[in-house]
């Protein structure tokens, strides 16, 4: 319990340890801790930002979905319209075609009729001559009565 040189020994040791701690212990530990604090703060901020971004993205996705839906229904409508239009056009075209076919058939029929009529006309002249010959009992000069016969045939 005597006060002696130990006092100064302890003081010297105290100074040495404090200096060591100040130089080699405190700064690196504190620097590492501060750096970690910053890192954690950054991480938390990044997480917040990511959350926010996610929310925004979700909102955007919903919006896009809505847009897509309206667009799709628009396309469907247009397609329906176009389909009915096509059907109408097809109908019209069919009618026109039908008319055309009918008309050409009619003209064919008319032609046939005319040809048959011409034939008949030719034959009528011969028949008439033959009938007249029979009636008159003599041959009729065809040349001489050509006008008469033609007139008759054209009346047919």
């Amino acid at each position, binding site marked *: *319990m*005597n*006060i*002696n*040189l*130990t*006092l*100064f*020994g*302890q*003081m010297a*040791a*105290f*100074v*040495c*340890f*404090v200096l*060591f*701690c*100040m130089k*080699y*212990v*405190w700064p*690196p*530990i*504190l*620097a*590492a*801790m501060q*750096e*970690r604090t910053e*890192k954690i703060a950054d991480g938390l901020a990044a997480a917040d930002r990511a959350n926010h971004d996610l929310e925004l993205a979700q909102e955007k996705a919903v919006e896009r979905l809505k847009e897509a839906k309206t667009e799709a229904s628009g396309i469907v409508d247009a397609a329906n319209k176009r389909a009915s239009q096509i059907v109408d056009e097809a109908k019209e075209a069919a009618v026109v075609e039908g008319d055309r076919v009918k008309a050409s058939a009619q003209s064919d029929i008319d032609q046939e009729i005319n040809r048959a009529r011409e034939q008949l006309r030719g034959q009528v002249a011969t028949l008439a001559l033959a009938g007249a010959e029979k009636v008159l009992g003599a041959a009729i000069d065809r040349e001489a009565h050509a006008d008469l016969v033609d007139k008759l045939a054209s009346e047919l």
Partner: protein
Amino acid sequence: MAGENPTISEYIIHHLTNLTYGKLPGGFEREDGSIIADGGAWVMAHGGAESSAMGFNAIHVDSMAWSIGLGLIFCWLFRSVAKKAETGVPSGFLNLVEMVVEFVDSTVRDTFHGNNKLIAPLALTVFVWVFLMNLMDLIPVDLIPTLLGFAGVHFQKIVPSTDPNITLGMAVGVFILMLYYSIKVKGFGFVKELTMNPFNHWMFIPVNLFMEVVGLLAKPFSLGLRLFGNLYAGEMIFILIAALFSAGWIWLIPAGLLQLGWSIFHILVIVLQAFIFMVLTIVYLSMAHEDH
């Protein structure tokens, strides 16, 4: 132990005697009967009478060795952590050290408002070092002295903070820092603080000076003696409990319970005293920095 069958008081005194190396004065008769030659001689003391005869020219080898050894353990532990300190996820011992550092840092921040790079490492050193020195108190009082007794070392106090030289040595170190910063920060204001407080009149300068100097000197003494007193008393109780074990088999269980109870209570005391020493160091240095 010193004798074959020591009495209780011999036992206690033996436990409270430091291993001392010092200079015995010429003509001193040692315990073994030999007489020191004229001019004195540096020897290991055999017993309390010799170490007190050495006066100031002596050194407590055990206190110094344990205190420096514990200081080196502190440096080594914290340096190894400082080397490993990374920004990644800390684990195990790293966490403990960082917890202590964080705790000291926040205490310093709360108490010390100046800008001084010395205060925080100083506080950390004080806290951990004093804690480690106090921690020696929890080692059974007879264990290490007995083991060293087999090796031929007959005195050993393993708790450095029960040696007033150790606690006052640190307190005086803090005191010198206080004076240094007072003069550095306040300059002439420090003189004014000593002479013009609390009575602001030139007539009262001697009274003021006396009161302020007493107050100033009381700081390191109270700082050192508080730690010494607490740990000395704690060590004393451990020694008394240890002495109780030798009082007969009927005392075994009560002594064991006392030992356990006091040890558990002492865990609180050793941390608290380390903390108080650290906080007062910070407070005193903070006062040295503050200009009134």
